[in-house]
């Protein structure tokens, strides 16, 4: 494998062979959860009692199959780890033969295990979390649907199959954000998510059309084989393609300028936030760019823009996270920000793609764990999400507290926990970009680390320490708070994820295990070489993190938390509270003009277009009425005048012809 990749030849992914053995059953990975969803949705209320168990069986079966395929693949040579499963001819028309097939390679298998593994845990957690919901069966059906679509997204071996999965997860996300559909806020958030994603999808679709136009194919192998030649012919086209793909990635992954939907998506039940809006779906953008490594390797501009988007987003996310009192919104902004880190890394291009995937995996563990912890807190607090009503919960829910703390430490990059092994190298890699570019990207990443420490420490203190403020309060529905630990179906997944939060980073980063495994998919890993010693970067990062923790302690830990929001705040805080302007921009640029244009058009359509027609009809009617007063039939009078016109046209035609 290694000798195939010389420095001069562009990387185009390793060649795929037909899948054999267990791998040839890969279609079942998708089919099983899809079947689960279908049975639960078509079966209706008859499956209410056992439906959730079926859903869990399906996703666990998918996970087990994924493991079998994974180990089979690990057993092969590095050069023989890429295989294709052909399913059927999807769109067979002239000049466009689209076959539906799956690509099994280290990158897709990594995602399969993340999706089905974390997915299975969150399915289990949901048994307890959704216990009292009358529509729990529907919830599990949608979760299964999500898993199937997400697997299609990462397994498809053409961009069209990827797009199908891409839209499929969008649908599942829509259904799950709006799961409590009788809440207007949930319905609004669901619609917003879908529409903003569609904006991104336009980019992805156009990128696919561009591939077809220039290369005549949309399959991974075809596109990646031809992209080098295209770059020689027209480098600008490759850059445009990369930027269009990025637009798609931004929509799905909540990156600037399409980030505003993700915090609102927290309207969905918390397991959804954990699975879809933290661990898996929102990282699809990172997958897309890593998968398109052969394209991004050929366009420096494309990669640079990805990194800039990542750096800007990670700061926007951090700022947003600092000002929120809603525990899920803080975590949501944290997700926006952490995916910003992944974009930053993946944009740095050849050699460091693996760092983005590493952070994606560790983030999958600790952020899913944090969300499940937040759900557990809400479960014990009458579904209240306002951290100002919390306080002193550490003793009331010890398991939640411990697992949450481990996730927290992993997220802020505490030494030797998962986040440390994945975030620190990204900061190093950013500095390694060199020059002003390196300084700016690295600086942003460093600042982000400090801010992350600040808002997460604030969250920890407000939730688990200090005065139990809930004792004097009642929840919005008038009940008193009786915080308690959650049932074992909920705490078990939290514990498993906590283990991952602690150890996954060390395991995956150790001996560059993950990077070597991914090499056939994204290219050889090159360890970043920052201009200053790596240890110095690490120490500076630690200093920023410590500073963030300290400031949070001084701001929140040393003073009582106020129940009412202070309004005499600085412009920065106001901006942060207003979602860093994300919604305002959408409103001003799109929503309001859109509504205005629509209203105008509706008016014009009725008055001008239709009015002209009706006016003409009335005029003709009046004219013919005067001409032939004996005519009584409305239709006939029209018909006559029309016929006259037609005869004129025919006469004109014949004249023209004979002239």
């Amino acid at each position, binding site marked *: 494998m290694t000798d195939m990749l010389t420095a001069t030849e562009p990387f185009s992914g390793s060649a795929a062979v037909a899948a054999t053995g267990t791998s040839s059953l890969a279609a079942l990975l998708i089919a099983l959860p899809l079947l689960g969803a279908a049975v639960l949705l078509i079966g209706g209320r008859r499956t209410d009692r056992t439906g959730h168990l079926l859903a869990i069986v399906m996703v666990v079966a998918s996970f087990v199959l994924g493991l079998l395929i994974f180990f089979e693949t690990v057993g092969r040579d590095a050069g023989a780890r890429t295989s294709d499963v052909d399913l059927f001819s*999807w*769109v067979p*028309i*002239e*000049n*466009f033969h689209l076959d539906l097939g799956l690509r099994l390679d280290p990158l897709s298998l990594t995602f399969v295990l993340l999706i089905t593994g974390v997915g299975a845990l969150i399915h289990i957690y949901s048994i307890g979390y959704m216990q*009292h919901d009358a529509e729990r069966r529907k919830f599990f059906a949608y979760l299964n649907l999500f898993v199937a679509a997400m697997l299609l997204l990462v397994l498809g071996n053409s961009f069209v199959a990827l797009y*199908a*999965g891409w*839209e*499929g997860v969008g*649908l599942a996300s829509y259904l799950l954000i709006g799961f*409590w*559909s*009788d*809440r*207007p*806020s949930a*319905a*609004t958030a669901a*619609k917003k998510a*879908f*529409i903003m994603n*569609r904006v991104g*999808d*336009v980019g992805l*679709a*156009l990128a*696919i*059309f561009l591939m*077809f*136009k220039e290369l005549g194919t949309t399959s991974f192998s075809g596109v990646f084989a031809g992209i080098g030649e295209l770059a020689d012919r027209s480098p600008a086209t490759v850059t445009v393609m990369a930027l269009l793909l990025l637009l798609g990635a931004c929509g799905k992954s909540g990156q600037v300028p399409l980030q505003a939907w993700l915090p*609102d998506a927290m309207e969905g039940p918390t397991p959804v936030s954990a699975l879809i809006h933290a661990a898996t779906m929102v990282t699809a953008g990172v997958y897309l760019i890593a998968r398109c490594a052969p394209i991004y390797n050929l366009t420096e501009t494309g990669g640079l823009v990805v990194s800039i988007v990542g750096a800007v987003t990670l700061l926007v996310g951090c700022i947003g996270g600092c000002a929120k*009192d*809603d525990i899920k919104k803080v975590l949501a902004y944290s997700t926006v920000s952490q995916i910003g880190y992944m974009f930053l890394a993946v944009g740095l291009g050849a050699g460091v793609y693996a760092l983005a995937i590493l952070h994606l995996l560790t983030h999958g563990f600790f952020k899913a764990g944090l969300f499940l912890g937040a759900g557990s807190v809400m479960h014990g607090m*009458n*579904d*209240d*999400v*306002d951290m100002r009503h919390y306080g002193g919960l550490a003793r009331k829910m010890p398991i939640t507290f411990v697992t949450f703390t481990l996730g927290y430490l992993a997220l802020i990059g505490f030494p030797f926990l998962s986040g440390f092994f994945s975030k620190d190298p990204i900061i190093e890699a950013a500095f390694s970009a060199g020059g002003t570019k390196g300084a700016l990207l690295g600086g942003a990443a460093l600042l982000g680390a400090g801010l992350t420490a600040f808002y997460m420490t604030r969250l920890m203190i407000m939730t688990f320490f200090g005065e139990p403020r809930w004792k004097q309060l009642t*929840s*919005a*529905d*008038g*009940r008193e708070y009786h915080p308690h630990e959650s049932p074992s179906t909920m705490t078990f997944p939290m514990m498993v994820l906590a283990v991952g939060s602690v150890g996954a980073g060390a395991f995956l980063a150790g001996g560059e295990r993950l990077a070597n495994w991914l090499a056939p998919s994204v290219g050889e890993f090159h360890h970043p070489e920052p201009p200053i010693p790596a240890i110095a970067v690490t120490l500076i990062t630690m200093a920023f993190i410590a500073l963030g923790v300290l400031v949070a302690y001084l701001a929140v830990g040393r003073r009582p938390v106020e129940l009412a929001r202070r309004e005499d705040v600085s412009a920065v805080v106001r901006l942060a509270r207003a979602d860093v302007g994300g919604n305002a921009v959408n409103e001003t640029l799109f929503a309001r003009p*859109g509504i205005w244009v*629509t*209203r105008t*058009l509706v008016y014009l359509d009725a008055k001008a277009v239709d009015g002209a027609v009706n006016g003409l009809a009335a005029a003709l009617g009046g004219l013919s009425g005067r001409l032939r007063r004996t005519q009584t039939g409305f*239709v006939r009078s*029209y018909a006559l005048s*029309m*016929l006259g*016109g*037609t005869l004129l*046209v*025919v006469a004109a*035609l*014949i004249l023209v*012809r004979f002239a």
Partner: protein
Amino acid sequence: MNGFPYLLLLLVIPLVGAVVVGSMKGAPVRTVKLVALGISLLVLVLAAALWIAHTPSDGGLQHTMSVTWIAALGLKFSLGVDGISLVMIALIALLVPIVIGASWEEKLPEGRSVAGYLGLLLSLEAAMIAVFAASDVFVFYVAFELMLIPMYFLIGAYGGPRRAYAAMKFFLYSFVGGLLMLASLIGLYVTSKDHLPGGTGSLDWETLKSIAHQIPESTQMWIFAGFAIAFAIKAPLVPFHTWLPDAGAEAPIGTGTLLVGVLDKVGTFGFLRICIPLLPAASSKLAWLIILLSVIGIFYGGLLAAGQTDLKRFVTYTSIAHFGFIALGVFAFTTQAMTGAVFYMVAHGLATGLLFLVVGMLTQRGGSRLISDYGGVWKVAPLLGGMFLIAALATVALPGTSSFIAEFLVLLGTFAALPGWGVAATVGIVIAAIYMLWIFQRTMTGPVRGVGVLGSDSDGESFLPSVPLPTTSGWSAGSVDHDGHGDTVTRTMTIAAEARKRFPDLNGREIAVLTPLVVLIVFLGIYPRPVLDVIDPTVRSTISQFQGQATDDVTVGQTGGGK
């Protein structure tokens, strides 16, 4: 005539059926309905047999038959199907029994008989099949005009409150189109005399096709104009569209479904059958104009749909946007786009058929067509809401629905030939998501509310349909009030349970009517091959014939680019 006369029977059976059903005014209503349904199912079986007998690899006309009609003018009554008309005939044969099933309990206006209604419906079926099966331009024209008559009466006699206005408007628009077409038809006939041996004119499609390249471009332009305006009215393209919202909204649900699902496609079919093969030079020269109108239509129809207050008018405006995609695909002149456009005609028939029928079931229950009279229906009638959702997803062309394959191919093929237009049309997919999800949100989600769902005689809340908040949670998605298991839910459940008494969920008949559409939408989304295999050869031969005959100085497919 060779082989089994499928096409003739496909015309005769619904026509005879129409006469039989129409004369059953004295018979019990149930018998009338069963007879009509039986006849439509017989037509469906026959269409299925025709599909099986069809040879997909042959893109030309099959099952042709021809008898002399007006010998003095050399006119013949000729029929034949190729891949494009076959899929459309199959769509008609499928939709008619579904529509009859859906109209089973439809309340007709005072003094109107079921026999008359169903008789007209069957005669409409015969006329529509004739349009698609015609292999003579004159037969096409006659069928095109004949279609008008049952539809006029279906809207005018059986429609909603403004039916007279709507029917008249429909009639006049179509009539104007028809007369322009007649003028062009005569022009075509006269022109053909110059190019045929013996100086006898002809309107036989195959004959005209063979001389298409000999007709001078200037003459083609005139003839094209008449046909194109007729088809643009029928399709309809902006700005010839304003009859459709009125006709679609006032038509009874079943009629409206056929109007939007099939009848309008005669317009786009006409472009494919008449304009492109018979007038290639003019088609090539004027493609930019049709493309411009199509892209305007995608945006215009979408934005107008978003701004509607009436559910049925909403559906017709979404269709105007979709016809934009279809016409765009036809005139992009690539195999991908044109195959996509034909597939779109089928997919749109299924998706809009489903949407129209579901909307009909909704408005029938609520007794109102106003969007604002509904809210939270999903909680009250989950199956109806689910069907609405599936229709919505098919309308936004989500992968997994047949519309996706169609829209994707149209956009892919358009982009390959005309990148600028391709980009513009692709942006249109965002608008589809906006209007469709917005209406879903307004009618299906949120608290249960609205006169349509709760009735005007229930508790005070229903009198405040526009006040959105009987619950405590805020409109803004920033609310910190996650009371998912609290009081509000209990309350919503109570309201929903109350509403269910007067607003029942779908019954068995309704489910049976909608299921075939849902199954086909999903099946063709995942495995479109059976239909694509039929369409592709015909599209290929249409394109190659077009390219062979388009005048050499015109670069095919580039006419509209670079604007």
